[in-house]
């Protein structure tokens, strides 16, 4: 009986919508009622620090190269001990598409995504974040990682002195 089925299929939904009308809405009333996003939520980028409080970024430009919209730029500089850092570091959030590719590319876990998502501005220029705006005083999602304890030139330990690091290769010994 398709006719009977059709009529039932037309009438039954009315009951369902009527019943739903008397239920309490599940809407979150956003500006008054804010649900903190999960810690792993991925929104605005931050520059994190290693456990000793030093900057993690080694100004390798990998994030800048990975960025599909080219919104990261920086200037590399070198400290007396040979450690590289970013003299300035700039992200234009007016262009950022929050794809997270920079965070994927970063070898030192310096650039990470933070859960902060509500930072709209009236002027696009206010969305250009400089290094001091980006730097935070914690390690982000991994508080223990310290790049120079695993690799890198002899900043923390002498060259090749880290536990899981090989010594420098004598390139001449590789000659055929």
């Amino acid at each position: 009986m398709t006719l009977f089925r059709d009529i039932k299929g037309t009438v039954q939904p009315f009951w369902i919508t009527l019943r739903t009308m008397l239920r309490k809405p599940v809407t979150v009333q956003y500006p008054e009622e804010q649900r903190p996003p999960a810690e792993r939520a991925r929104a605005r980028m931050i520059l994190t620090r290693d456990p000793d409080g030093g900057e993690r970024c080694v100004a390798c430009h990998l994030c800048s190269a990975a960025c599909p919209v080219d919104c990261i730029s920086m200037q590399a500089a070198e400290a007396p001990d040979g450690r590289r850092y970013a003299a300035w570091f700039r992200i234009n959030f007016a262009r950022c598409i929050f794809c997270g590719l920079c965070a994927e590319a970063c070898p030192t876990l310096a650039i990470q995504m933070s859960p902060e998502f509500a930072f709209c501005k009236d002027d696009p220029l206010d969305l250009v974040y400089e290094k001091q705006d980006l730097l935070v005083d914690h390690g982000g999602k991994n508080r223990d990682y310290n790049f120079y304890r695993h690799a890198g030139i002899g900043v923390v330990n002498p060259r090749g002195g880290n536990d899981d690091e090989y010594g420098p290769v004598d390139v001449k010994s590789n000659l055929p």
Partner: protein
Amino acid sequence: MTEGLITLALILAKLLLILGVLLSAAAYLVLMERKLLGRMQMRYGPNRAGPGGMFQPLADVIKLITKEDFIPPQGDRAIFFLAPGLAALTALLAFAVVPFAPPVNLFGRELPMVVCDLNIGVLYFLGLSSLAVYGVALGGWASNSKYALLGGIRSLAQLLSYELAMGLALIPVVLMARSFSLTDIVLAQQGLPFALLNPLAFVVFMISTAAECKRLPFDLPEAENELVAGFHTEYSGLRFGLFFVGEYINLIILGSMVTVFFLGGWHGPFLPPIVWFMLKVLAVAFFFIWTRATLPRLRYDQLMHFGWKVLIPLSLLNVLVTGAVLLWLKG
């Protein structure tokens, strides 16, 4: 002389009152629809502007006024300006024959609670609802855009087909009331509303009413995601708003028509007649909103099939049966 003046003043006051009530009712119907739809989808609907979203209609109007008003340069300007007005005006005019309460005594004179008690009110209403088709047709044509034109033709075909079913569903009512005047029709429902006496005509009329004011499941003129909006594709700003408001005025008008023809008009126990009338119109409006939240849109061929192959034969049959029964009862 003063007699005439007073009559004139009373008529004017009535007109202004009806216009004001109708327009604000249309605006708040939009709010009611959005709120109810929200609740049926487990959200709140507009609740930002004013307490409980009370000023939302005002905010909507401001938004519509300040939007960019685009006029297609190749279009027919005069008709492009005229069409939305036509849509809203025909809807407003139809209310002239709706009796919303029994006559009241004011200053010792009988004041009918209807702008104009035409003795061919049913015909006037049907004529005006056919005129409303022009707003759609001209709007689609004057935009000089293929999408608007095709959408206009599509809506036109829909409106015409369902107009037929609507007219045919009214014939049993006229037969039963033995009058074309809406007041007489209401008076004839003193005992039982026609919805109970002739449920088939009621159902057919409700369905074709939904199609006439382009409500879901027949809102193909508004199927913007699958069919392009239709006749008002090129309209923006206030002109679009006029189409929009026209649609809601139409909803009120057709709701009052359903009330007058089938739900017994102002008749009802305990409450004053005008309250009963408003309650019934609101109930019809609620039903349409409820339907909108419930049923999916019909496909265009289904819509046409349903109109021509189901509704029209059914209402023709109903005319026949009602006529026969009435003859038999009399004979």
